[in-house]
């Protein structure tokens, strides 16, 4: 249990979440395509959810379900976010004929 200086299982989950968050952020930052940015954001949201669930599991009052509920609501909200985001991407694509973020920098239609 006490490998690599980690004292509780919680830290392992948190580190995985941090790594996933960083990966998602990197994806959002380095890719050109708007859809990839959205994927990156989804990954970040999921990392946050993992944190929430882990905190719920190892927190002092799991029976209160706070973290769990937070995660479930976050999943629902993330679904809404994905729908709207992808809808926007499709609309932008129809308008500018591209989904590459570098090329979408004008407010004027």
């Amino acid at each position, binding site marked *: 249990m006490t490998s690599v200086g980690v004292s509780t299982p919680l830290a392992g989950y*948190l580190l995985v979440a*941090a*790594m996933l968050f960083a990966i998602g952020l990197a994806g959002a*930052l380095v890719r050109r395509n708007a*859809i990839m940015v959205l994927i990156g954001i989804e*990954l970040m949201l999921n990392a946050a959810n993992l944190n929430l669930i882990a905190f719920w599991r190892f927190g002092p009052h799991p029976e209160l379900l706070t973290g769990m509920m937070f995660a479930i609501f976050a*999943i629902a909200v993330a679904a809404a976010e994905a729908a709207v985001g992808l809808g926007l991407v499709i609309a932008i694509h*129809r308008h500018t004929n591209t989904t590459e973020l570098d090329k979408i920098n004008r407010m004027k239609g």
Partner: protein
Amino acid sequence: MSPIFYLLAALTIGGGLAAVLLKYLVHAALATTVAFAGLALLYLELDAQFAGFAQILVYIGAVAILIVFAILLTRGSDLPKDGVFSRTWALGLVIAAAVFAVLGWAVLQSVRAVPQQTAVPAVTVRDIGNALVGRYVLPLEIVALLLTAATIGAVIVAMHEKERPR
């Protein structure tokens, strides 16, 4: 830390990395699905059965499908001519690394204070249901409203612009 945890962590991180690195958008989306699945399994490992299944249902069953649909509708399944990474990719990588460093540091700094606690919480789906329509009924309603609004909004945003009526 069980081997299963390491396996699932590797699956999740691997999926995420593949998602960011793969050239084809569809491949990236499928790799994201792997990451989602890994996360769902991690939830199960954390005794959060309901959240895990909800994750599969929502992310693999809906969000991933949405993403691939969006990819196909924006002709994203072909490779772009001038590379998939933006010109300033190095800067992005540095910032992501910095974020990870700060997060990791924070985790390692603070988990010492957390007591070790491994008793499996006795939480059933019924409890979750009761909590959803009990303590959390207001957020539930708000999320329902949000989902409705988002659905309508997404449809309207993505709909073909009609000819202006004369």
